């Protein structure tokens, strides 16, 4: 009984499914592309970053935020997929097989990670087309940019474990889709992703500074050399790369434990 082999069998199964339901992957890509276009052209001219309202500055500020929001939306996919498996009786089939405890959920989250990576590549290409550029500072290099995308993917992976727990906790895939997405709005908006959080009311700003999501956005901005890096005394804003890593690892550890426990005892 091998955790890695079993997880791979499940991941492969979910990846095959994605190729058979291309419209799901397509919608997953269209949504963030729409956000890029809307935020850039609608909000672009009226957002103040630092002391400028230059739309080009906002564009460079915005992209790491959109990237981060996009990876977290994978949560809904995981939740819905797992709830669907439970509803169709596949979860019972898996649970009656002599396979590794966490493999069904790990396989699902790994497949979702592959989809997220694909979405992120396409999104970055679209961002480049509308004029997004990484910083030109000397410290910005390919390794740092890749590290930025690595942290984004890790955040997405961590969030799919929250999705796994949601998927196991609800009765229908429809509920899982809503349940996987509604809480993402406050999480991604009470943050530094779309506006300069240093201009928020102090108590909101405090939440934004400690929001795990903000840490990754800040880390991506630092690594990409983007404008609008938040100036704050909060530890995660001062050490965003470490904070991002730490938050993501913590989320995986916590929600993986909870989800796997729930999987073992789930009554579908």
């Amino acid at each position: 009984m091998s955790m890695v082999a079993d997880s791979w069998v499940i991941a492969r199964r979910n990846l095959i499914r994605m190729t058979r339901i291309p419209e799901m992957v397509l919608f997953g890509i269209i949504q963030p592309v729409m956000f890029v276009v809307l935020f850039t052209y609608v909000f672009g001219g009226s957002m103040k970053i630092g002391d400028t309202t230059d739309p080009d500055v906002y564009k460079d500020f915005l992209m790491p935020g959109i990237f981060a929001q996009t990876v977290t939306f994978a949560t809904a996919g995981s939740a819905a997929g797992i709830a669907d498996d439970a509803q169709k009786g596949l979860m019972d089939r898996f649970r009656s097989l002599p396979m590794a405890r966490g493999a069904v959920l790990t396989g699902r989250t790994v497949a979702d990670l592959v989809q997220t990576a694909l979405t992120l590549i396409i999104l970055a290409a679209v961002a480049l087309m509308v004029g997004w550029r990484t910083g030109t500072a000397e410290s910005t290099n390919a390794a740092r940019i890749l590290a930025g995308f690595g942290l984004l993917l890790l955040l997405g992976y961590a969030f799919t474990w929250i999705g796994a727990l949601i998927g196991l906790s609800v009765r229908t895939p429809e509920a899982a889709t809503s349940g996987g997405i509604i809480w993402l709005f406050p999480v991604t908006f009470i943050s530094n992703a779309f506006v300069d959080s240093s201009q928020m009311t102090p108590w909101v700003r405090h939440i934004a500074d400690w929001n795990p999501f903000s840490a990754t956005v800040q880390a991506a901005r630092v690594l990409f050399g983007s404008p609008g890096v938040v100036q704050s005394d909060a530890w995660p804003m001062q050490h965003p790369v470490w904070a991002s890593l730490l938050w993501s690892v913590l989320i995986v550890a916590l929600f993986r434990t909870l989800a796997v426990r729930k999987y073992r005892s789930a009554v579908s």
Partner: protein
Amino acid sequence: MQEAIVAEGLVKTFGSVRALDGVDVSVPTGTVLGLLGPNGAGKTTCVRVLTTLLKPDSGRAVVAGHDVLKNPNEVRRSIGLSGQFAAVDEYLTGRENLRMVGELYQLSGRDAKRRADELLAQFDLADAGDRPAKTYSGGMRRRLDLAAALVVSPPVMFMDEPTTGLDPRNRMALWRVIEELVSDGTTLLLTTQYLEEADHLAHDIAVVDHGKVIARGTADELKAKVGGERVEVVVHDQERLTEATEMLAGFGKGELGVVKLQRRITVPVIGGAKLLAEVIRELDARGIEIDDIGLRRPTLDDVFITLTGHAAETEDGNAGGEGDDEEQSEAAPQRGRGKAVKH
């Protein structure tokens, strides 16, 4: 004979509902036990406990020599489960589904592939093997689900309402597959709400109601509990019904049942075929024309009503109930009960 499945005192409650209320079950190796009962009787819960999907509140169970609670993974290696609805991935092809299950049973990639090919051929799915299961008919999906449960030829099989929702032709086809399986020595625990199915497939039947096994025995033993044979006559002319009824009362050992609209008379008898011949001669002598006559043995339907005081129909109208409702409502009023039914 060694027992392949033993359960003692299984209790499982969901909130205030006692889904299992002290269930004892034992299935000798190589035999078929039919768990028969209405929806909500606790059949599925029982299967879920025995297949390690659900922990009982109390009680113990041993399947294929392994304790369900202490060594669930050993149990999983030795069992196959075919569920109430076909648990296959509809976006995967039949072949991909079977390979996946094989690999999760820890077969090597090559063995899983070979086994998938064998099963597709065996279950008459070879031509459809490379099509997504989504395109399969209900019967094909059910066969694929059963094939998935048989990937490692497990010594103990569980089938939870394997034919619910299938049309009669597909049901018969699935019965043949199950019969073959059992003739190869597999131990099978089967749940069903179709009395006919338990009668046809199971060596032993356990009648389950409200989380308890209320009777157990072979189909014949259970039928013997409700009593003997009945002669059933359908008279051609409505006007001769009273006369025929009076005549038949002379042969009967108990109360008569008369359904006026159908001109049907049912009378409990002792004496079987010999007596039937006498009845026919007497009717002929009196010139009473008949549309139908026969010797009826009690059905499991009768058994169920006698044991539980209610018909084996769905109580709460749960999943998959529609098909049987039809069958039950059609069957119930027509069959004589051995007691007088006045209309």
